[in-house]
């Protein structure tokens, strides 16, 4: 049997799809992702919107983000769990995942708000919009494509990184990769990796759909049909 056939057999085996098999790990994985992303967004979006709108503190935040990006996730997790105690392993994992998701979300929101055409913001203010109305009515809607792009990137990264949950007995799809590696069961290891990739791709597709729904048609990048210009 080739490697691919072995993986296929593992992936389709009914035993692996028993309630405490793949479905459980998938749910765990989803739970970690679904916890970390909203928390990260809650931190990153308001902060990014604020510094993008006021144009204050941009350099400082970008520098900080880059240093956070350099942190090794696994090392941080292994450090945090003993420090916080095994009972708080989930919280420790969430902290690590949030730290991964914040930089791209913050950068995307900041860049999105900041890069809104100055003439548009000028017009908005000149027509009598309050700062709040400028931010919520003009800057954020125009920043949405970049923000959602950042959300997709962050989600992808968190799904990939959540595999390390298995290192601290939290399961997730990473369980299969680690167990497979330990037991030299390559079908399980590769199968786990395929599942993680499939989850990432699915999330990407769902978010792309969301982006298509919530971003104004006026901001869609590809407009191949050039309308006849009359003046």
């Amino acid at each position, binding site marked *: 049997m080739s490697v691919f056939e072995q993986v296929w057999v593992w992936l389709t085996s009914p035993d692996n799809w028993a309630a405490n098999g793949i479905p459980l790990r998938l749910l765990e994985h989803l739970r970690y992702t679904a916890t970390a992303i909203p928390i990260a967004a809650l931190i990153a979006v308001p902060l990014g919107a604020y510094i993008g709108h006021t144009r204050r503190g941009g350099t400082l935040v970008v520098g900080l983000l880059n240093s956070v990006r350099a942190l090794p996730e696994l090392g941080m997790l292994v450090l945090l769990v003993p420090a916080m105690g095994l009972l708080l392993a989930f919280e420790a994992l969430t902290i690590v995942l949030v730290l991964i998701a914040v930089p791209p979300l913050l950068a995307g929101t900041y860049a999105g708000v900041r890069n809104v*055409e100055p*003439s548009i913001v000028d*017009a908005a203010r*000149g*027509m*009598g919009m309050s700062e709040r109305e400028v931010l919520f009515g003009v800057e954020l809607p125009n920043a949405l494509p970049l923000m959602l792009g950042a959300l997709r990137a962050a989600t992808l990264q968190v799904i990939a990184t959540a595999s390390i949950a298995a290192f601290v007995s939290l399961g997730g799809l990473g369980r299969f990769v680690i167990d497979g590696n330990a037991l030299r069961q390559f079908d399980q290891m590769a199968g786990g990796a395929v599942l993680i990739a499939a989850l990432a791709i699915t999330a990407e597709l769902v978010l792309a759909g969301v982006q298509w729904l919530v971003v104004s048609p*006026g901001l869609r990048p590809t407009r191949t049909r050039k*309308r006849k210009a009359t003046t």
Partner: protein
Amino acid sequence: MIEFQAVTKRYDDGTVVVDSLDLTIEDGGITVFVGPSGCGKTTSLRMINRMIDATSGTILLDGADIRAQSPAKLRRGIGYVIQHAGLFPHRSVLDNVATVPVLLGTRKSTARKQAAELLERVGLPAELGKRYPSQLSGGQQQRVGVARALAANPPVLLMDEPFSAVDPVVRDGLQEELLRLQSDLGKTIVFVTHDIDEAIKLGDKVAVLRVGGRLAQYATPAELLARPADDFVASFVGRDRGYRALGFLSAQGVPVGPVATVALGASAEQARASLDNGWAVVVDEAKRPLGWVSEGSLSTVDQVRPEDLVSGGSLFEVDSGTLRTALDSALSSPAALGIAIDAQGAVVGGVVADTVVKALADARRCGEVPT
């Protein structure tokens, strides 16, 4: 009425962009701020709606200090049009136009209905309302920008180089449109441009500013051309100002002489017989001019056909024309005879340059020309 009283704008680094400006802008006219870059014209404009706050001095809007109310509230009562229109890309054209009424609390459906009417008013089909700004041409975007500024029916309109980013032909159309709109609406318009020709074409009054933010001259366009206050204004107003000043003098006094006409499709023989000084104007059934024929152009054909015409110069409309259009029609005509037309566009006669110059001399004698 907008009054600038000793208004100065000085930046932290000490640069003075507007220096003790005293200026009164009358209601119901177009006042143009013009000058080279760095003269503070845009700054002066933006101080009116408090996009920039003056360092010292007072600006009164209808007698009340503009600082008496919050900037947002003040701005909602003043139309604002900027260079690239600054339309909101994420909102449909209709919603762009409805912006200020919605801010002021008008119901969205009502505001949209009014917006559709406004689009037609600025010369755009109402169907365009459903599109997004990126689907419009530059000229269309600018029209939407004007409609958006007019949406809440503000008495005052600030226009900051609104037409400078579009090509000359479109710009010309937009300028005509603005004048037409203004003759209907009678708003108080403050208009900034660096283009003196635009200033002279649009302005009821023109304020020429010099670098450093000092007012060099504040006068009607005709006066600016006839009597520039100093060398700066004279050089800024530019060459041909004597000629351009003719644009402010009515051509009522210019005698319209006869002109030889020949119908399109007439035989070459007929055409030759009607030539006057070697030239004749070819006209269609409604007597509208199509071009010229001459001895030379008739020598090789036996009928007057559209493709054989020598194209004509500019036309001079008898009732509304100025000395400038009269003179230009004569100078640009291949026959040295300007074609005079009536309001329907039909040929009524011809004018020669000499008579225009003579009419100018008469006008001068009667004191109609500022000297």
